[in-house]
């Protein structure tokens, strides 16, 4: 993988003559122009790219509105371990938006897992094994919020594996601003991590993201701009040399920061080459930005904009790894700010409106608040459906962009009342170029199967070669090894 495919393809030549696209919302079957005659591979013979993504929401769901079957006497004892059943998402409130958007053939569920052999609780113990395959490491007093991921999350593992193939190694996006419950500004709450207790702060502005992706395009006839590009590359070259010179006797954390820094500089330098300056959309109308106004956030509006930009980025093959943090884990967001949840949108049935303005995580501990948890989670899933639908609407090869994605949608625990990490929801969306089956529900035996199998299933389906997901870690105490070498084979195409 020493040659950058996107440079080799000469995107500019391929894109010439596609015509003017004025609006960003236009579906662009862009990769088609790069395909071979059969539409099944890239023009150079390589397979169509599979993109890896994480779509995360905080604070779980209502099990009875999610699990495909619910036994009256025990919500946990659903299905028969080890079975695979066809799944009808329209039967449950949470998943109904997926069915309504026609996404059932793209989406499978995996339940019946645990992070560890013994059930654990709390947000960290769910998030970290699910997203990184590893147990969370505690430095000093865990109550001071000093816990951290040892190894990278799925999206960052994919970013490393696909490095150099696309102009952007990964996109780390977020919708809800503000930190997890009662710890504002804390750096360890984000979804995407590079390991080593370092998390990637998401980009929250769809407009800034759009500009970063598409607006740095320089007209070849603009001589002043062309010169500046050359000058900037010369500068970045020197900066890269400085980083390499500094990267000598350093501690592990410092080496990690400088490695990431050098990679970001090289990535920018490559993007500034003329070959990749042309993009697959003409800079038309930028997306609406939906900034926070007076502390009030409009998650639906911002998520719609963000999803539209993300869909463009994936369709244009600008990146093959992303993390989409709809809400942060342990989210303290006040969902009653949302017009469709607070009665401002008249068409919404009062049964689906929140009756109080509150901080979600705290309130969701209260058994009396659970109908509001249902409403909020329905809202979350309809946003998930929108993100996925945009990908399913873009043709690519003989399928759609979503056919060539492997996305894990998940949260850090199951139901917020107990914060149980038994049966954490694992939604596998996209067909990974045919390597994943859609429309199935797999229910495992939670004494045997680990939540981290979801991540490994996604990564292997996308062609990321990993023997084991996460590192074994026990340190002589605490939960046993959460890492895994197993995937959910029942969801893979035989």
């Amino acid at each position, binding site marked *: 993988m020493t040659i950058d495919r996107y440079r080799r393809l000469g995107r500019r030549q391929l894109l010439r003559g596609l015509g003017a696209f004025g609006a960003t919302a236009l579906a662009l079957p862009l990769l088609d122009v790069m395909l071979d005659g059969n539409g099944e591979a890239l023009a150079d013979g390589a397979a169509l790219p599979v993109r890896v993504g994480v779509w995360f929401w905080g604070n779980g769901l209502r099990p009875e509105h999610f699990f495909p079957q619910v036994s009256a006497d025990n919500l946990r004892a659903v299905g028969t371990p080890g079975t695979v059943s066809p799944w009808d998402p329209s039967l449950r409130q949470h998943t109904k938006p997926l069915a309504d958007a026609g996404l059932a053939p793209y989406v499978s569920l995996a339940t019946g897992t645990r992070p560890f052999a013994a059930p654990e609780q709390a947000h960290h113990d769910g998030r970290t094994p699910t997203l990184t395959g590893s147990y969370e490491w505690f430095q000093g007093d865990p109550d*001071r919020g*000093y816990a951290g991921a040892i190894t990278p999350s799925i999206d960052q593992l994919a970013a490393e594996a696909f490095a150099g193939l696309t102009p952007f190694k990964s996109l780390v996006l977020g919708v809800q601003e503000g930190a997890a419950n009662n710890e504002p500004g804390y750096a360890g709450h984000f979804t995407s991590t590079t390991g080593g207790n370092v998390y990637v702060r998401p980009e929250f502005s769809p407009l800034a993201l759009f500009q970063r992706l598409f607006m740095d395009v320089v007209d070849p006839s603009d001589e002043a701009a062309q010169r500046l590009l050359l000058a900037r590359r010369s500068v970045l070259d020197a*900066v890269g040399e400085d980083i390499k010179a500094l990267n000598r006797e350093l501690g*592990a954390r410092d080496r990690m920061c400088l490695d990431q820094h050098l*990679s970001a500089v090289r990535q920018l330098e490559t993007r500034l080459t003329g070959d990749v300056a042309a993009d697959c959309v003409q800079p038309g109308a930028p997306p609406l930005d939906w900034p926070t106004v007076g*502390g009030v956030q409009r998650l639906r509006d911002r998520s719609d904009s963000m999803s539209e930009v993300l869909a463009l980025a994936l369709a244009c093959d600008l990146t093959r790894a992303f993390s989409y943090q709809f809400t942060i884990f342990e989210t303290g*967001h006040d969902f009653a700010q949302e017009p469709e949840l607070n009665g401002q949108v008249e068409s919404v049935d009062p049964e689906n409106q929140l009756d109080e303005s509150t901080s979600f995580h705290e309130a969701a501990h209260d058994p009396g608040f659970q109908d509001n948890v249902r409403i909020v989670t329905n809202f979350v899933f309809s946003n998930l459906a929108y993100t996925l639908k945009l990908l399913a609407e873009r043709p690519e090869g003989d399928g759609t962009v979503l056919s060539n994605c492997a996305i894990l949608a998940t949260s850090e625990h199951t139901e917020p009342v107990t914060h149980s990490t038994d049966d954490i929801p694992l939604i596998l969306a996209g067909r990974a170029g045919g390597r994943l089956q859609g429309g199935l529900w797999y229910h495992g035996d939670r004494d045997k199967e680990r939540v981290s199998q979801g991540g490994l299933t996604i990564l292997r389906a996308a062609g990321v070669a990993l023997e084991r997901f996460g590192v074994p870690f026990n340190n002589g105490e605490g939960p046993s090894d959460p890492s895994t070498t197993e995937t959910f084979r029942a969801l893979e195409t035989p």
Partner: protein
Amino acid sequence: MTLGSGCGAEDVPDPERLPPSSLKLLRSFEYRNSVEDLLGVELAAALPEDLVRANFSSISASTDCYPDVSVEQFEAVAIDAAARAFSQRPTPLQRRGCPAATPDDPCVRAFLADFGRRAFRRPLTEEELSRYLFVVANVAQIYDGDAVKGVELAVAGLLQSPNFLYRVELGAPLEDHPGVRKYSDYEMASRLSYTLWESTPDDELLEAAADGELSSARDVGRQVERMLEDPRADAALSRFWREHLNVDRLTLTNYPRPGATEDLYAAMRAEGRALSERLIAPEVDALEFLTTTRATLRPELADFYDAAPLTETAEVELPPTRRGYLTSGVFLATNGHPDKTSPTRRGKFIVERILCGVVPPPPPDVELSLPEAPEGEATRREVLEAHRSAPACKSCHEIMDPVGFAFEHYGPLGERRELDNGLPVDASGEFRGQGFQDAQDLIPLLRDASGVGRCLVQHAYRNAIGQLETDAQLVNIQELTAVFEDEGGREYRALVRELVSSDAFRYAHGLQETPEALQEEGA
């Protein structure tokens, strides 16, 4: 604590008591101040707000890494800032009388060496100077021989170098004691400057470093005296309090509360900032943050506190129902639930951040929510007391709740109230064997409690070092506390002076590792 001292040799500190050294990211305000000090232009771009670890941005700066987006933003900002600096007349080159007719002009080299020294906080190596002179030549060629443009871009490059974007303060092992790393004089100039001024060192500091005058504690102390006199020190010193007391974090995004408005929160933050500024003044007892009866209030906050009405912001005497930080809006609103008070959270803050006690996390498998009592049937306190009787909960809640109950006269936003759920508030209790009737009674007990001074020193230490202390470093904190409480007169400014001259600030032990590396080490 000295391992060995001899004739002419310095006292070498015990390595176990020293923190490891690491690169530090520039925080947004440090980056902004540095670029503005170096180039004399204001930054146009908004930088993302700084993250925190263990409540301090300085700890995040030595723990986290720059995301790709920041690296890209630094590039854009540097290109833009350099372009604006060089579009001024006279240009930075002209101010130094350098025509820069060609890239080989000796004054170009001198200019870059000087700018680089200020940007990197040390002289450039010959290799680095050549590297950026090459940029000058290369860019000049792109621009038809325009060497000034070349220098402009080289300046933009120096501002993107890791030697600028990170505080590279790693120290070097002492020859006879390789376990102890001593910060070089230039590294000390950088440490002092960013800790006390939040910006790049001035010429005097760099000259002191060049002359070897930042090696001893006494030399450092001399510079520190000068630096604390400078108004720039006020921002850095008060930032400690703003972070420690959660002042800037009170926003609607972070703390959605029914009835809260952006204006009210802004007034509460302004009160907290004014308090932070008062606490750093000479001869002020730092523990006044608990007991002061003065506050700077905006009119809406004066109303909210039932103080005498104001028509504009003023420093006033608080009404008898308020005194110090613990009855301020910032404390009361950031430690609670949206629509209910949380004596537990208020108590937890006091136990952890004022007394430095340890509160274990709740055990697994417990229901954390409390039932709602119908109006007039039970107060919040009664509900809490009834439901926290389970042995698993009791041991911790006994630590937190009793001091938290003292603040039940203040509602979720901090509004004064006599009734809770229709019943009279009972704010009485006992703290370390002494009874109190309410918060006004409790607060002086807290100020006089043993360990309060030490706890403040512990947080100041974390903030200045940029790391959580190890157990072996607790003795450093004890020694600093002794000075703070005796000759220091509990003055925060004096504490900082002591801290930045101390061994823990001037020496290090080892390099900072990541969790994974530590794990391998332990395995």
